[in-house]
């Protein structure tokens, strides 16, 4: 060993031990005082224009960061199991992401879907969803997808079928617009609120979806509609069978044995439909991945007033 040089192994070992003790101490302190609980999310910079200037030429990366924060905020809040679900940062985060990157297509489209989701699965702010998409249209005036999505927001969240049809129609007039916008506008105007129209709407979303997530979400919505169709066709069968057996409790095997069904019915995701033996009510299985189904009650079809 050179005189004056410190021995490496004992020093590395000692440093490692000290670091390990520090980590143990930190874990114990966190458990005792809860110092590992994240602070409330804060949006330090609130103006997209200021953020764009601060980011210099790294505005695209900054937009990605805000986008990831928006996703985490939405997903984290939605999955929260306790307390009130507060999505108040969702729009500001999306506004920042799209302000930093005005062509951030998916931030507009996903963002609008997130914002228009009714409570507690979302903030229930179709007005902000429309505002975000209008901002996208300002940056890309020929983006028919944004017009389609504004129509979707009016249809699905506001139940304002006339305005929805107007937006589908406007979108259909743009160059390169998808073929389905024109018939969608007509059907929405004529049969807004009907399940067949919803099916057409989600088929259009599945086709226009420029991300795998949008397509998968639309496909799930279509499977929900399929499940609702299936339940509608099962209910009379169950009612007929109950009438035959004098209102006695029934099960799916009873119906199969009676020849009313070939097999125990399952929803499109493979879950056996729940059959209430005493009432004959058919529902999705409690664990079905298609829950919750969209509300088709008449009150649901009334237009939601603008805030």
């Amino acid at each position, binding site marked *: 060993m050179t005189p004056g040089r410190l021995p490496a192994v004992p020093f590395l070992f000692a440093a490692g031990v000290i670091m390990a003790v520090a980590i143990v101490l930190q874990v114990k302190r966190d458990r005792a005082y809860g110092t590992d609980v994240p602070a409330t999310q804060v949006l330090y910079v609130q103006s997209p224009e200021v953020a764009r200037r601060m980011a210099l030429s790294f505005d695209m990366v900054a937009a*990605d960061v805000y986008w990831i924060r928006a996703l985490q905020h939405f997903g984290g809040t939605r999955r929260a199991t306790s307390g009130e679900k507060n999505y108040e940062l969702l729009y500001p985060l999306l506004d920042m992401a799209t302000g930093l990157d005005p*062509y951030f297509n998916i931030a507009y489209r996903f963002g609008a879907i997130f914002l228009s989701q009714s409570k507690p699965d979302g903030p229930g702010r179709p007005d902000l969803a429309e505002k975000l998409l209008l901002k996208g249209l300002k940056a890309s005036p020929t983006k028919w997808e944004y017009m389609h999505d504004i129509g979707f927001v009016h249809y699905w969240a506001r139940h304002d079928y006339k305005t929805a049809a107007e937006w589908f129609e406007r979108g259909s007039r743009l160059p390169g617009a998808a073929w389905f916008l024109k018939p969608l506008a007509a059907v929405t105007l004529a049969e807004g609120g009907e399940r067949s129209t919803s099916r057409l709407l989600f088929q259009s979303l599945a086709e226009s979806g420029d991300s795998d997530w949008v397509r998968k979400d639309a496909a799930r919505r279509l499977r929900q509609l399929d499940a609702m169709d299936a339940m509608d066709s099962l209910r009379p069968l169950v009612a007929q069978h109950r009438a035959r057996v004098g209102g006695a409790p029934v099960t799916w095997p009873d119906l199969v044995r009676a020849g009313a069904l070939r097999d125990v019915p399952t929803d499109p995701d493979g879950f056996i439909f729940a059959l209430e033996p005493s009432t004959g009510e058919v529902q999705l299985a409690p664990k079905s991945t298609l829950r919750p189904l969209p509300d088709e009650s008449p009150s649901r079809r009334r237009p939601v007033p603008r805030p």
Partner: protein
Amino acid sequence: MSPAISASTVSRIAANVFKESVRDKVLYSIVLFAVILIAASLLLGQLTAGQEVKIIKDLGLAAISLFGHFIAIFIGIGLVSKEVERRSIYALLAKPMSRTELVLGKFLGLVSTLAVNVVVMTVALVIVLAVYEAMTPEAVRTAWEAPATDPRIAVAAFLILVELAIVTAVAILFSTFTSPVLAAGFTVGLVIAGHFGADLKNFEQVVDSVPVAWIARGLYYVLPNLSAFDVKSQVVHAQPVEALYVAMTTGYGALYVTALLMLSVLFFSRRDFK
């Protein structure tokens, strides 16, 4: 100082700077870090709900620009000032070379290093994107705004390199007449100001004072307009970047670099090393 410039002398100095830079461990670590960052972008992509390709491109191009700026500024200011600090400038100036050749050689050497770095990083980025593209189903790929291995990435990388050449020339200019710390501060300040071109040009929208607005507009023309070299957004979103725009911006960069190098040579030629 001899007014004649020997291409062979300049290229020999440039080659030396290149070798020195490549041998520099800091340079290696920066390149390695950039490659790691680009690879890490793959992991980050998993958090982005179907925006992996955009995020990988954004991060990759930003990393190329960021690390290039670090190299251009911190190695650039040392090119001349280090020779002065080490007093090796006396030995250099005693050799049959002019100060003009020294400045030009130093500049070209670092720009060559930067070019190699940008090319290596771009190739690494394209490889990461190609791997991602190969692993992605066809149905998902069709929804992308632009192909993952879009050749326009090379356009963005090229304009980043031209921007870095300007930053290098700025760093060399400041290092010819001031200390390394001040030169670094001035260069960083100028790089930041260079991204506020549009704001400077339209300053009358912010202030009522006409003279201040004119001064700001003057600064817009005098300061390097670095935001013009940023076409990352267009490339990532598959928007057109016209060849004429690239040519004009490159021409602007070349002229600006020439002007800065002339000033550097002027200041350096008047510097007294006694």
